[in-house]
């Protein structure tokens, strides 16, 4: 470990998405496609064959007009910390060839495309369907190939890919900080493409452990919740919503249970182990 790394405190980069603000415009998806060289096909009608590192889901409260309410849920990779917060995210521990790894300095789950041999065990393990498989050779219309991002490698057929929280932007920010003689990078220096593109400011990104970063405060808000918390995957993507029906859509509840009781239930469960 170099001196530089020793000085740098461990980060837990995470995202907070305010669902009350999200309009479902899809700008985050478009930005992600462009930033990360995500290929697309002529026919994208089958969404389970689409490559997208972030996908916006539309959910409703199930009530008929005029009581219908809609909410959009953008879903990138949750960058799970794993059951015991030790980096054993559902996907990392199952990969047989160490092609996906948990980066302890940042908490970001990486994917090494040239190492992946396409067994798709990580996809089976991920409860969020955040992992996508390259079923076809990647291709872009001829003119578009000129616009590919040189900082992100394009992937080959037969491997798994997923959201990296634009890790290449973190590397760039770190290089810049190093050249300027800093140990730390500023909050604004490292922001993923989707967060930058969001026109309503619904997405916030930063170090969840740094009290100076906005996500620190937001992730601790009463409105904050995560998807499928009961699975104990410990995602680093938080959502904010003031609507109780939206929170109910984020996890599975037994009869009589409600999102409010969840924390209590979890405490009892932990105590019983």
């Amino acid at each position: 470990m170099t001196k530089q790394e020793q000085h740098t405190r461990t980060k837990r980069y995470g995202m907070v998405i305010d669902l009350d603000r999200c309009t479902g415009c899809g700008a985050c998806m478009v930005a992600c496609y462009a930033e990360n060289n995500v290929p697309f096909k002529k026919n994208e009608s089958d969404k389970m064959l689409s490559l997208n590192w972030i996908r916006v889901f539309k959910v409703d409260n199930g009530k008929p007009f005029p009581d219908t309410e809609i909410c959009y849920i953008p879903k990138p990779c949750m960058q799970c910390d794993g059951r015991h917060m030790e980096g054993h995210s559902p996907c990392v521990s199952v990969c047989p060839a160490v092609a996906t790894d948990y980066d302890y300095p940042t908490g970001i789950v990486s994917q090494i495309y040239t190492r992946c041999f396409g067994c798709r065990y990580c996809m089976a393990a991920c409860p969020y369907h955040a992992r996508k498989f390259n079923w076809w050779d990647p291709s872009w219309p001829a003119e578009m190939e000129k616009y590919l991002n040189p900082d992100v490698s394009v992937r080959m057929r037969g491997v798994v890919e997923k959201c990296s929280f634009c890790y290449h932007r973190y590397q760039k920010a770190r290089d810049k900080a190093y050249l300027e003689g800093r140990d730390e990078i500023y909050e604004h220096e490292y922001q993923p493409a989707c967060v930058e593109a969001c026109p309503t400011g619904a997405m916030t990104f930063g170090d969840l452990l740094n009290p100076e970063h906005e996500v620190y405060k937001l992730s601790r808000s009463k409105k904050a919740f995560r998807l499928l918390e009961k699975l104990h995957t410990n995602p680093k993507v938080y959502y904010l919503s003031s609507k109780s029906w939206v929170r109910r859509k984020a996890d599975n509840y037994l009869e009589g249970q409600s999102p409010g009781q969840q924390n209590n239930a979890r405490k009892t469960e932990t105590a019983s182990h």
Partner: protein
Amino acid sequence: MTTPAIPEGVKRCSTGKFALWLAVVGAVLLWGVYAMFLVWYKGLNQTGMNDAYGFALWIWADLTVIALGGGAFFSGFLTYIIGKKELKSIINYAVIIGFICYSSALLILALDIGQPLRGWFIFWHANVHSMLTEVAFCLSVYFAVLTIEFLPIVLENPKLDRIPFLHHLSHNLHEVMAVFAATGVFLSFFHQGSLGGVAGVLYGRPFAFREGLLIWPWTFFLFTWSAAAVGPCFTVLITRITEKVTGKKLVKQATFRLLAKISGWMLLTYMIAKIIDTWYWAAVTAPAKGFTLMDFYTNNPVYGIWILIAELVICGLLPAVILVTRKGRENNLLLMTGVILAVIGVCINRWVMVLQVMAAPLLPFQDWYMYMPTWQEIATTILPIAYGIILIMLAYRYLPVFPQEKELNSGS
């Protein structure tokens, strides 16, 4: 050389008839090979899989052939380690069936991975924490053991046996076979278990996840146990089919009954463990993750509670009861019913632990995922069956597979 290729003292059909059947099965094989090359050339877009179904028909086929091929390790264990001499009359065939099953599993795995040319990464860059790594290692090494166990049978072909070195090699391999068999049992215990662990460790998938002992989820032990229980049933089934096709008695009834009895008790104890596991999962494990048992069996067109009943009762407890009772084993029809139900039961178990895991939705705003295999997937899954039949045809014709055949058919 004038030595006949067919073992001494046994009757085989004419070369013409043999070639005709070889051509028929060969045509099916070629269909599968064509599909196989399509998949390798064009990629996995040739399948019905998608991002929800990363694991599908092939992984099911893989798990199933390995469970059914478990007859080789368990018969080997009973013959060489426990010392059940009666099983010597069927062990050769159990080894051949195991060899077919395991070579098929390796072929299917080579098809299933997105980058087949990088398949060796699983060994080279092994992640020792992954159940799949353990599967790959144990499976490959055990396949090597099966090849070594198969080798002396091949070398006993009259033409090969004439060559002094091969004759001695066959003899010497027989001499130390117990060592290989013991290694095979050790490896099988782990890879059969790890295949169960593949689903059981998925803590993000409440349908599959199980608690367990140390690093091993309960499915680890259940898979090993069920393979040991049903593997011999599959050996009995294939041997009886071979007897029907050839019109000959190949193995003594007593051997079938002994295997069936051992299978029956293994199956009964397995079913008790499996039912306790299912109950604990439905009552404790799944509810802690926000799911009730019926969440996994409703709101979809395929997976109703019938599949659980079929697996546990009709193809689980029922065959176990048939096979542990003397009357059940002595009645030929009941015996075969028990054997077939047990084989179907393990097929259902492996299906559920692969495909239903993928089908069940996790987020409340998502629906069940349904999957339909393409013809390429089906053809490549039938391919190993055709290959297996051809290998059995060749082995039966040219190798002394059944030591009791001469004695049992001397009257005819």
